[in-house]
């Protein structure tokens, strides 16, 4: 009996050992995260963007890996002043719509689909969505709510009751008229063309609509109405406005013209399955099936790559050596990215913050306005080991940048002074701070990072260790918290400093300079009201303009050369005052099996473009 069991076991095990199947007709992409939503007008993250990118087409696209050259897609022409499709001093973009393009359900692409797409996106405009990027150039406001409030002349809460019904007949009429007067004229169908009118010339507009991440994706009008999206009518459009993402029927459905169609989104396994669309207007893709699965555990991803089960995996840089030693695996290092990891200061910490010790300059904490003192900021700036971080921790996969503007962007100037690790300099600044008292008293504070982000943890620890080297009385505790806690702390202005990254929405310096250095920027906003004073103060460096004004003007400047110069000036200024510490611009690594052919990298793409691949 025992012998029999043994033989049976051996038999079973040998079956297990040899039952591996290779899949020449499939790509398995083991990623880190699952999409947030597949509604192109709601998705704002790269995981969602990657799927949308492969399922939908935009009017135009980037030419391969370039961030500046475009090629026509659903529009047969890339509008420019030269070819006459960019008109009215750069405020009207004309897109002739390609014929013979079919959606996955067999419907033909029409100019009406394009018009519907843009109007639906703008009217939908969910909170925390990406649609501001289109609304800003077309209407000059950030949200459709602002537009409505301005048009109707009443606040949103007054216009609508809690169930999103207009509170009066007049408001209802005004809302209907709003569509006819504001939205409808901005995007028009003229014959086979779609015209989009901007409120003023806006240089990055083509970058925005060409982004594969969603907001430029063209959806099928008929299908959309059928599954319950906006019905295309002016009456009651507001019922289709601002849903939460799970309310949108497009949350896990997709109907595009792209090279792949969505087969299924298996939430339990964080798995997306795409299948080749044989009727793709450019000709069908080489690979039949694409599986994108979120696998949180690194060891599992690695193992799957090693066994050939996964073709592409997301890999943290710390495992570079391991990956490089693997057989049959291609590792591409040092791919540029469009993001910056930085350390920001809170100039006005809320006194109830648990992270500032006693809240006083008594050696057991920091005062709430600690970082308003530029000596402190500069002391911190010279206490971080930028080169060491990049060389040792990131395995060389990072760029030491002077400000929070990534390399490759207009206005980037490598010759600008960069902060370096210089403990003596730092000591000098610290000795100056608070008239020398800081040096004597020392300080205690917490630096937080979000758990799971090892780079940020290490960065905080480097800062901690160096500060202690300068003066052992400078004590920093590095604390890991969960992302929600981290964001909550930032929102409540109780974080003394925060290490955080910014990923470009579109490749334009405005997207970084405004974010980081304008007092209303997404990050500048968190420097506190004391920073508002600072940023609105007229500056001799800017010929009497304030920092805020300078940033605003730079974004409107149409002459690229002048614009570049303005950005350089802004950067010089922010370096002198150490407004934020640009820790590094990360460089990406790419890991896939050798047999994957046709890989093209574009830093602004949300992910892989499987249409190009073969095996």
């Amino acid at each position, binding site marked *: 009996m025992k012998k029999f069991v043994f033989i049976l076991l051996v038999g079973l095990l040998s079956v297990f050992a040899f039952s591996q199947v290779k*899949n020449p007709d499939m790509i398995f992409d083991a990623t880190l995260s699952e999409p*947030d939503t597949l509604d192109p007008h709601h998705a*704002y993250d790269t995981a969602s963007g990657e799927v949308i990118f492969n399922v939908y087409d935009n009017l135009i696209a980037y030419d391969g890996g370039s961030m500046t050259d475009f090629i026509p897609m659903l529009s047969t022409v890339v509008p420019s002043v030269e070819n006459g499709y960019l008109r009215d001093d750069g405020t009207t973009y004309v897109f002739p719509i390609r014929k013979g393009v079919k959606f996955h359900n067999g419907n033909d692409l029409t100019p009406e689909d394009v018009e519907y797409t843009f109007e639906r996106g703008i009217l939908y405009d969910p*909170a*925390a969505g990406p649609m501001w990027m289109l609304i800003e150039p077309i209407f000059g406001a950030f949200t459709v709510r602002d537009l409505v409030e301005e048009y109707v002349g009443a606040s949103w809460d007054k216009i609508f009751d809690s169930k999103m019904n207009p509170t009066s007949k007049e408001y209802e009429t005004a809302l209907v008229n709003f569509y006819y007067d504001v939205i409808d004229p901005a995007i028009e169908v003229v014959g086979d063309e779609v015209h989009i009118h901007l409120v003023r010339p806006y240089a990055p507009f083509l970058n925005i609509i060409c982004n594969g991440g969603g907001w430029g994706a063209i959806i099928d009008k008929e299908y959309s109405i059928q599954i319950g999206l906006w019905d295309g009518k002016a009456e009651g459009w507001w019922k289709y406005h601002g849903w*939460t993402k799970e309310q949108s029927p497009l949350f896990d459905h997709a109907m595009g013209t792209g090279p792949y169609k969505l087969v299924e989104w298996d939430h339990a396994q964080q798995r997306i399955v795409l299948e080749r669309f044989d009727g793709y207007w450019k000709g069908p893709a080489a690979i039949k099936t694409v599986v994108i699965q979120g696998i949180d555990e690194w060891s599992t991803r690695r193992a799957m790559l090693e066994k050939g089960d996964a073709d592409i995996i997301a890999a943290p840089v710390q495992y570079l050596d391991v990956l490089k030693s693997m057989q049959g695996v291609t590792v591409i290092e040092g791919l540029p990215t469009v993001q910056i990891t930085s350390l920001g200061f809170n100039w006005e910490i809320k006194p109830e913050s648990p992270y500032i010790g006693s809240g006083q300059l008594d050696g057991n904490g920091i005062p709430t306005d600690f970082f308003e003192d530029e000596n402190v900021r500069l002391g911190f700036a010279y206490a971080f080991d930028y080169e060491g971080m990049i060389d040792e921790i990131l395995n060389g996969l990072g760029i030491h940048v002077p400000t929070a503007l990534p390399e490759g962007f207009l206005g980037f100037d490598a010759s600008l002074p960069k902060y370096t690790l210089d403990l003596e300099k730092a000591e000098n600044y610290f000795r100056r701070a608070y008239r020398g008292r800081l040096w004597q008293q020392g300080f205690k504070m917490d630096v937080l990072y979000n758990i799971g982000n090892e780079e940020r943890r290490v960065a905080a620890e480097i800062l901690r260790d160096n500060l202690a080297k300068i003066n052992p009385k400078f004590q920093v505790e590095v604390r890991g918290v969960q992302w929600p806690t981290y*964001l*909550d702390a930032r929102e409540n202005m109780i974080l003394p400093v925060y290490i955080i990254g910014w990923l470009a929405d579109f490749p334009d310096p405005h997207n970084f300079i405004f974010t980081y250095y304008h007092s209303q920027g*997404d990050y500048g906003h968190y420097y506190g009201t004391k920073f508002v004073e600072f940023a609105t103060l007229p500056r001799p460096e800017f010929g009497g303009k304030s920092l805020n004004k300078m940033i605003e003007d730079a974004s409107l400047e149409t002459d690229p050369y002048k614009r570049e110069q303005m950005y350089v000036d802004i950067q010089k200024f922010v370096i002198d005052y150490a407004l934020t510490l640009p820790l590094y611009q990360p460089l990406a690594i790419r890991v896939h099996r050798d047999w994957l052919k046709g890989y093209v990298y574009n830093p602004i793409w949300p992910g892989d473009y499987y249409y190009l691949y073969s095996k």
Partner: protein
Amino acid sequence: MTTYIIRRLLLLPLIILGVTLIVFSMSQLLGPLKLLSTYVDPNTYAKMSERDIQILMKQYGLTDPFPVRYGKWVKNLLKGDLGWSVVGKEPVLDALIHRFPYTIELALYALFPIIGVGIWLGVTAAVHHNSFIDQFIRIFALIGWSLPDFVWAILVLLIFYIGLGWFPPGNLSIWANQIVKSASFKNYTHLLTIDALLNGRIDIFWDALRHIIGPVIAISWLWWANLLRITRSSMLEVLRKDYVRTARSKGLPEKVVINKHARKNALIPVVTTAGQMVIGLLTGVVIVEMVFVRTGLGSFAATAAQQLDYASIMGVLLFTSLLLIIGNLIIDISYAIIDPRIRLG
């Protein structure tokens, strides 16, 4: 007994209400902002404006006071709506239904070796009380009992996947998954191995089995330790009983004395443990599911907790508590069936 069960059934809603109240009040310790941040993609949240935050708070009803929120939650619960699972990206109820079969399949497969071997080892140890075999089994149990499950699970993965290549992580191979998800494959029970057999797909059956053996090995030792300790001490106690002596005095062979007279009595307390184990397995596989990337309730709960996805947390806890309560009830009833002394009592 019957009154006891009726009493328990009557208390059931009260206890469930208590569970939800405790779990829900824990959410009070989080501010609305933290709760909100779970609904939004982290990177998106970092880019959100003040106004976006206000709108979303309202949309998700996070500004309401605690009793209102709890009332809403209970009302929805009665309608069968457990809310939206951020982690699962689907309604919580669906998320639970989709993940539960994976856990239950794992638990079922783990159960046979655990109970079989556990009881066998326990009885063997007791019969050979204080002998070499007994000591060996005790040490085996002690180590299993003292072994942190995550360390052992990693070692199993290391040995059997990386080293030998036998038992890969995950639920199914990709090719098998394609077939399982296709229209031609009928899901009768949602348990992969059983469905595979019902569909006549031996290859998929093997594949599913291959994926389940690793976690089963990882779980087994720890639970063996538990079960065999109880079996052993129960058996030792029974072996001292008069009726065992009676059986011997009748001239019954030792095998019959142990396997018939002693074991049946010794297993009565073991049944309770084994029953609790079934429930325990359903909720205690968190670590193993995480390490082996199995998409069951455990890994769902862990991710939900890590990301503070409160709707999912509530759902999982409610669901598992229900399992626990009902499971215990079933144990009590089966206890009565096994032990004739209780039946009429």
